[in-house]
């Protein structure tokens, strides 16, 4: 095919009785930023580790450019693991030089790449310091440099924004956009949904090892249940209860955010609000990615309640991957 696409095709993985991934599929096109979101334990990290071949899938396939990934093609992927991994006692430049060469660069090219990326990510002054002597933020920058130093044609970043200060978040965002502009498929996971919403072309929401929603952010938001914001200062608490198809999703001062189910009548809501007193504000709003995410997760819980045999809902039931330990957040 040769279109530089990263495809995850029906990948499954189970650990004993625990299903970590259940025929998970998604694709990231060349020059596309793909946001991978889901609760802890939903399977994001396992999926990324399978892409990198650190974990072997029970079934399914990962392809790049139409061909299954091999050790050779994986050398051209830039990877940032969830559990940050660098030699603590090795100097920054030496470490990056070593990793660049393991990814296939010659010694001279590796040296130039190290100089360029340490400069670009603002750690050039720390090149000769041991990694363990750097602040966490700077270690994170070095980690990103390690993912970029061999000029990867695919980027897979697990939680690249966690633990970054706002300046570093800007640098990271800029670099990701730049890589996208260079035609690289970029996939990253994050819990910072506002960031995902702002940066990504497409988003995939994974739940219990399955892709439950996947598409452009706008499309997903348009498809979610509509929100209605009503500002009725004199309305008593619970004024909207009992309206057909309406769910109260939150209160913010005198404002109430309502979710309208299919067939709900927004005019009935307006009448109920006016009955309580003056109405200062009344407008429909599309759900944010965060709201959408919560909807999807909650809907999934209902499904579990309905007897679907899936494991790993919520925040902490299944450890992501076989790295049992800190959740990395």
């Amino acid at each position: 095919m040769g279109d530089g696409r990263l495809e995850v095709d029906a990948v499954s993985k189970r650990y004993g009785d625990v299903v970590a991934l259940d025929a998970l599929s998604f694709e990231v096109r060349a020059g596309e930023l793909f946001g991978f979101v889901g609760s802890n334990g939903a399977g994001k990290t396992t999926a990324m580790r399978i892409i990198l071949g650190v974990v072997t899938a029970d079934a399914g396939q990962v392809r790049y450019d139409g061909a299954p990934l091999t050790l050779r093609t994986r050398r051209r992927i830039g990877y940032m693991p969830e559990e940050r991994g660098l030699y603590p006692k090795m100097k920054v430049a030496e470490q990056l030089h070593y990793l660049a060469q393991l990814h296939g660069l010659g010694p001279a090219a590796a040296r130039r790449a190290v100089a360029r990326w340490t400069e670009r990510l603002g750690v050039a002054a720390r090149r000769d310091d041991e990694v363990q002597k750097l602040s966490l933020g700077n270690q994170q920058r070095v980690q990103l440099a390690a993912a970029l130093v061999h000029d990867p044609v695919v980027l897979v970043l697990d939680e690249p924004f966690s633990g970054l200060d706002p300046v570093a978040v800007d640098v990271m965002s800029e670099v990701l956009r730049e890589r996208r502009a260079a035609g690289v498929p970029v996939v990253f996971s994050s819990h910072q949904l506002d960031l995902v919403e702002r940066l990504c072309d497409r988003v995939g929401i994974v739940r219990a090892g399955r892709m439950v929603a996947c598409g452009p952010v706008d499309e997903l938001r348009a498809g979610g249940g509509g929100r209605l914001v009503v500002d009725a200062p004199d309305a008593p608490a619970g004024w909207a209860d009992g309206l057909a198809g309406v769910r109260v999703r939150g209160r913010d001062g005198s404002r109430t955010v309502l979710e309208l189910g299919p067939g709900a009548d927004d005019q009935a809501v307006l009448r109920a609000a006016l009955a309580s007193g003056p109405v200062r504000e009344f407008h429909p709003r599309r759900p944010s990615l965060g709201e959408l995410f919560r909807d999807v997760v909650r809907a999934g819980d209902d499904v579990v309640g309905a007897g679907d045999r899936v494991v790993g809902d919520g925040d902490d039931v299944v450890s992501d991957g076989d790295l049992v330990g800190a959740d990395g957040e």
Partner: protein
Amino acid sequence: MPTVNEGAERDERDGELGAGRVLRLVAGREIGTRLRSRAFQITTALFVVAIAASVLVTTAVGGSSAQRVGVTAVDGTQAAAIGAAARSLDADVEVRTYADAAAGRQAVLDGDIDALVLVAPAAAEVGAGGVGATGGGYRVVVDSDLGDSLTSVLTVAARQAALEGQISALGGDPATVGRAVASAGVAVTALRPQPERDAARLVLGLLAGGLIYISLLIFGPVVAQSVIEEKTSRVVELLLAVIRPWQLMAGKVVGIGVVALGQLVLIGVVGVGLGLATGELDIPAGVAVGSVALALLWYLVGFTMYALMFAAAGALVSRQEDAGGVTAPMIATILIPYVLGISVLPSSPDSGLILTLAIIPLFAPILMPMVIGIGSAAVWQVLLALALTLAWIAVLVWLAGRVYGNAVKRSGTRVALRDALRAA
């Protein structure tokens, strides 16, 4: 593939990294890290200093090197007498002749000789009887004092001279008496003769085994630590995305092995070199070098064997604190042969127990160099031990590779050995 290149020239092979280059990269990193480690630098320096000091101190204290005695030309006949006395006492004495007493004194002051012997003429002049006149005593001029062994030699020589004087005085021929005395001796018939053992070879054998023991004890755990460090820091995940587990493990073993062998060679060269130069090592240089070469061969075999086991053991745990638990069995198998070797071999170099144990692969790298050094191992025993050890290494390459490959990606609690062997 689309090019997204903005100046980073990739290897023309484009990600095609040969196993050889991967091994060189991994081993190179390991070597660099070890050589820069403060602990390694300090232990190496201490080792070299210790071995050099022990050789030099033994030389200075033991003084097995030749002692020099001067005589004046007038007393020239005493040179043979002193030499004979020295031989009878098994002492190494060199006799030099000086023109006169003044020259001899100067030689003592200059440190050229340890003692100047003058046949006492004083007694004859005093005329206290024939005894003195016939050369009864020696006057010995020394710088500050006369060593014990020289005192004995000179005493024997002086008494011999006095005896000969008396024999002459009584009308006998000292030479005839001397021959008669010399031919009288003790004829020993051993019913169960022991092959002759050279003490120096025993020392060399024990030293070789001891050094191998210490080096295995230092660098075996270093292999485990290095594996655990990569697990603890999670860098292993980054590495295993691009290289195979066996490449990482093999590169590590090779890298640390090169450093360990280098340290041992340095110690061996300094130790044997100084030993031969000072004459402390009283065996032919060829034998010494041969023993060292054989010991290094055994070290190489032993390190490979133990490093594989330490690497696999290290992969089972994720924290340095847990290293002790998984490496204890190997530490024990290194310790046991050494302790047995140094406690049994000095008294019974031909111990059947030790020779049997030396054929077992786990013990061979420490015990074999000991018995080879001593000279009690038959060639077939050495070859059998080598073949068995190499076979065990071949098994270990597979076994350790499997355990390492399966366990190294799993962090958290200790991985059970059974799971690591089974899991795909």
